[in-house]
C-alpha cells in the first residue's frame, strides 16, 4: 500500500509541475518583499489585464539570472539598492528600455546613463536620535565623536544600506579617513552590530542607546504598526549633513532583463510604475520618496520636513562599494 501511494504521488507530481503558460503575463524577479509591491501589481493587472508573476529572493538572484541565460523567463527586475542594479548591469544581464515616458518621469540623477535601469523611489539613510536628547544637528562624521561612546546602535556594517553609506563617505573623504571614521564609530557602538534598522529604534526606546542609523521609511512604517509605534515615538528622525553635502540617498530601482520574453508587457509595467497614480500609491504604502518630482510623498513622510540630498551620483557610490566592504572588514566592524 505504502509503495502504491508513493507511485501515485509521483504521477500526480509530474502532472502538477508542468505549468501551462496562457494569457498575457509579465514575470518579475524581485529583491523586494512581494507584499510591498502587490497592491501596485494588482492595480496594473486591473488596468491592463496583464498578469504579474513574481518570484522573490534576496540572495543569488543575479546568479540565477546569469545561469538561466537566454532561456530565462524573467522580464523585469526589482531591487532595493543601487549596488544590485549595478551588479546586474556589470554582468551584462540588462538591456536598454528606450522609453521616452520613463526618461521624462525620472530625473537624470536617478537613471543609468545608458538607459538600463532607473529608480522608482528614493530613501534617505537617516540618523535616529532619542527624543530625550532634544533637537540635534548631526552629520554622519559626528558618529565618530567620543561623546557618543557606548550610545550608538546599528545593524550589520555589511548590510547593503550601510555599505552604500560607507561608499559615499569614501567618495567624500577618501579611503584612509573613512577607515579611521569606521574604527571610531565601531568604538562608540553600544553593542555588536545586529538586527534590523527597526530593532535599533527599539533599542533607543529601551534606553539601550541614543543614536542609530536607519532608512527613512521605517519611521513611517513603525508609526503605523500597533506594536512598534511606541518605539518610533521615542525617537526623532534627523536628516544628516544638512549644512554641507546633504543626506545620503539610496534608491529602489527597476531594470529590463536582457532576454525578457514578454518585452512589450515588461515595458508596460515599467511605464505604469513611474506613472503618477502608481507613484502616489507606492509613496503612500511604502513611506518612500517618489522618484517623480511632481508627486508628493505621503502626508506623514512630508511632515518630517524638506531636506537636502547628497547629489553624488549613484554610480559613484556603486564604484566604491567593494572598497567600502574591505574597509568594514578591516575595521572589524561586525566582530
Amino acid at each position, binding site marked *: 500500500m505504502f509503495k502504491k501511494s508513493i507511485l501515485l504521488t509521483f504521477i500526480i507530481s509530474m502532472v502538477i509541475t508542468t505549468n501551462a503558460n496562457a494569457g498575457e503575463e509579465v514575470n518579475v524577479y524581485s529583491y523586494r518583499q512581494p507584499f510591498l509591491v502587490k497592491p501596485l501589481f494588482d492595480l496594473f493587472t486591473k488596468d491592463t489585464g496583464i498578469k504579474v508573476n513574481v518570484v522573490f529572493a534576496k540572495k543569488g538572484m543575479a546568479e540565477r539570472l546569469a545561469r538561466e541565460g537566454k532561456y530565462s523567463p524573467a522580464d523585469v527586475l526589482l531591487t532595493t539598492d543601487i549596488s544590485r542594479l549595478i551588479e546586474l548591469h556589470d554582468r551584462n544581464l540588462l538591456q536598454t528600455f528606450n522609453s521616452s515616458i520613463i526618461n521624462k518621469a525620472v530625473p537624470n540623477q536617478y537613471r543609468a546613463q545608458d538607459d538600463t535601469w532607473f529608480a522608482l523611489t528614493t530613501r534617505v539613510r537617516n540618523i535616529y536620535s532619542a527624543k530625550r536628547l532634544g533637537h540635534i544637528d548631526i552629520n554622519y562624521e559626528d558618529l565618530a565623536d567620543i561623546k557618543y561612546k557606548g550610545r550608538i546602535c546599528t545593524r550589520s556594517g555589511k548590510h547593503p544600506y550601510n555599505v552604500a553609506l560607507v561608499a559615499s563617505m569614501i567618495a567624500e573623504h577618501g579611503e584612509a579617513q573613512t577607515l579611521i571614521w569606521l574604527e571610531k564609530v565601531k568604538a562608540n557602538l553600544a553593542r555588536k552590530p545586529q538586527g534590523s534598522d527597526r530593532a535599533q529604534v527599539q533599542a533607543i526606546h529601551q534606553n539601550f542607546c541614543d543614536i542609530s542609523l536607519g532608512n527613512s521609511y521605517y519611521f513611517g512604517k513603525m508609526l503605523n504598526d500597533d506594536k512598534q509605534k511606541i518605539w518610533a515615538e521615542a525617537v526623532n528622525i534627523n536628516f544628516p549633513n544638512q549644512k554641507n553635502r546633504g543626506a545620503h540617498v539610496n534608491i529602489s530601482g527597476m531594470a529590463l532583463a536582457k532576454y525578457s520574453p514578454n518585452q512589450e508587457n515588461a515595458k508596460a509595467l515599467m511605464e505604469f510604475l513611474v506613472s503618477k497614480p502608481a507613484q502616489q500609491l507606492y509613496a503612500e504604502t511604502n513611506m518612500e520618496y517618489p522618484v517623480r518630482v511632481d508627486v508628493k510623498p505621503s502626508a506623514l513622510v512630508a511632515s518630517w520636513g524638506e531636506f537636502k540630498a547628497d547629489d553624488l551620483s549613484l554610480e559613484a557610490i556603486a564604484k566604491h562599494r567593494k572598497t567600502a566592504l574591505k574597509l568594514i572588514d578591516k575595521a572589524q566592524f*561586525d566582530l
Partner: protein
Amino acid sequence: MLYAGINASGDLFNHLWQTVLPSYISNTLLLGIMVVVLTLVFGISSAALIVHTNIVAKNLLRWLLILPLAMPAYLVAYLYTDLFDYAGPVQRTLRHGFNWQSPNDYYFFDIRTLLGAAIIIALVLFPYVYMLTRTAFEQQDQNLLRAGRLLGLTEQQSFIKIALPLARPAIAVAASLVLMETLADFATVQYFAVNTLTTAIYDTWLGYGELASANALASILMLFILFAVVTEQRARAQKNHQSNRPDTEREIIQLSKAQQLLASSFCWFLAFAGFILPFALLIIMAIDYSNTEQLFKLLPTGMNSIKIALYTATLSTLIALVLGLYQRLSTDSWRDMPQKISGFGYAIPGTVLAMAMLATFGPIDHGLNYLAELWQFKQPGLILSGSIFAIIFALIVRFAAIANGTISSGLDQIPKSLDYAPTSLGAGLGKTLKQIHLPLLKPSILVAWLLVFVEAMKELPAVLLLRPFNFETLSTQVYQLISDEMLEQGALGAILIVLLGLLPIIWLNKEPKKHRQSTGFHKKHSFQQNKETL
C-alpha cells in the same frame, strides 16, 4: 567546486585572511564543538533515561522529546531573542520589578552570543542524537548487558561499559548530522550576529561578487567535515557491533524518588525549552494577530510545502535504501564511495547548493532547448532548473546524509550472518532482501523518511532561490514576514510548519496498534519495533 576554489583570486583571500577570517574560523570551530557536545549530553542522557530507567511519564516524554525537531532553528532564535533580549518581556519585567534604569544597572546573559547560538541550535538538534541513540539502545542484545551484570558490573557500569559502546555507530551518525547541520546554518547565526565560515561564504559571493573565492571557502568547510567524519569512521572501523536478539526483555534501573525528580525535570526541561515554550509563544502571537481568513489563505501554501517534503522524503529514503544495500551486499572494493560522497551535501549551505543546482541543470536545460530548436519542436524552456524538480533534487542532495546515516546504522544492527544464511538455503537475493532485510529495516526506513520529511518542511534558502514564479511554501512566507520584524504576522504560518512536521510523528505513533492484530508474524514483529522507535 573544489576546482573553482583552487582558481580563486588570491587577493581577496589574503584580505579576508588578514582581517576577519581567523575569527570566523575559530567561531565556526567553537560553534561546532559546543553544539555537538551539548546535543550529545542532551540526547544520550535523555535516551538512556527513557530506555533504561523507570522515569515517570515515560511514554509521554518518549515522543515529546522528538518534537523540537519540528521547530526551525531560526524561528526559535527569533522567539527566544524576542523573549530574552534587553527589550524583551523578561528583562523588562526585571527592570520594572527592581527599578533598574539602564543596562549598566544589572547583569543579564546576552542571548546574541556564540554560546546563545550554540544552545538554541542544540535545543532543536538534540532529538537527532536522542532518536538514533534510543533506537540503538532499544535494539541492543539484552543478554550482553545481563552477562555484564553476572560478571559483577553494577547497573551503571554495565550501561557505560556495554550499552554505550554498542550504541556508538548510531551516536556517531547523529553527531555528524548535527555537526553538518550546524555548519550549514546561516539564518540563526546571522540573527545572533555570530560570524562563521558560512557568513564568509555569503560575504565573498554576494558582497564581493566572487563566486570562486566563495567556493574556496565552501571547500574549507567541507574539509572540516571530511576530517571529522573520517576520523570517527577510522575510530570505529575495527569494531563490529551486531546484535542477534533485539527483542529480549529489558532490565530497568530503578531510580530513587529524588533521582526520579531530577531525571524527569531534566527531560521536561529539554521538551519545554525545545518545543513547548516556543510553540506556546507562537500560539499566543497567532491568537493576537491572526484570523481564520488568513488561515485559509495559507492552505495552498501549505500544500506546496507538503508536496515538496513528501517527494523529498520518499525519494531520499529509496535512494538511501539502494545505496545502503549496495554497500552491504556488494563485494566491490569501492562500494562505500557513493554513500559517503552523497552524505556531504548536508553540510553545504542551502543557497550554495541551490547555485550548484543551477550550474548543473542550467546547461542541461540549455542543451534540451537547443535540441528542441534543432528538431523544430516547441522549446520547453527551463523545465529542470526552473521548476520544482530543481528544488526537490537540491533537497535530496542536502538531506541524503540523514537518510543514508539512519538506514546504514539500521543495517549495522542486522547480523551479517543473515545476508548469507537464506542464500545458502537456496533463497534468491531478491527474496532475501524482501523477507529478511526490509522487514528488519522498517523502523530505520520510517525514521529516515520522517526525519527528511520534517527537515524538508523547514528548509528555506534552497527553496527561496530555486522556486518558480508565484510559488510560496510556508517557510518562504514566514521568512518574508519575520525578516521584516513582523514575527507576529508570521506566527500562523510557523505553527503550520510545526504541525505538519508533527503529523507524521503522531501518525507513526498510532499506526502500530491498528495493524498489530491483523498481520502475520513478520509484520507484527516489525511494527512493534516501529512503535519502539517512535
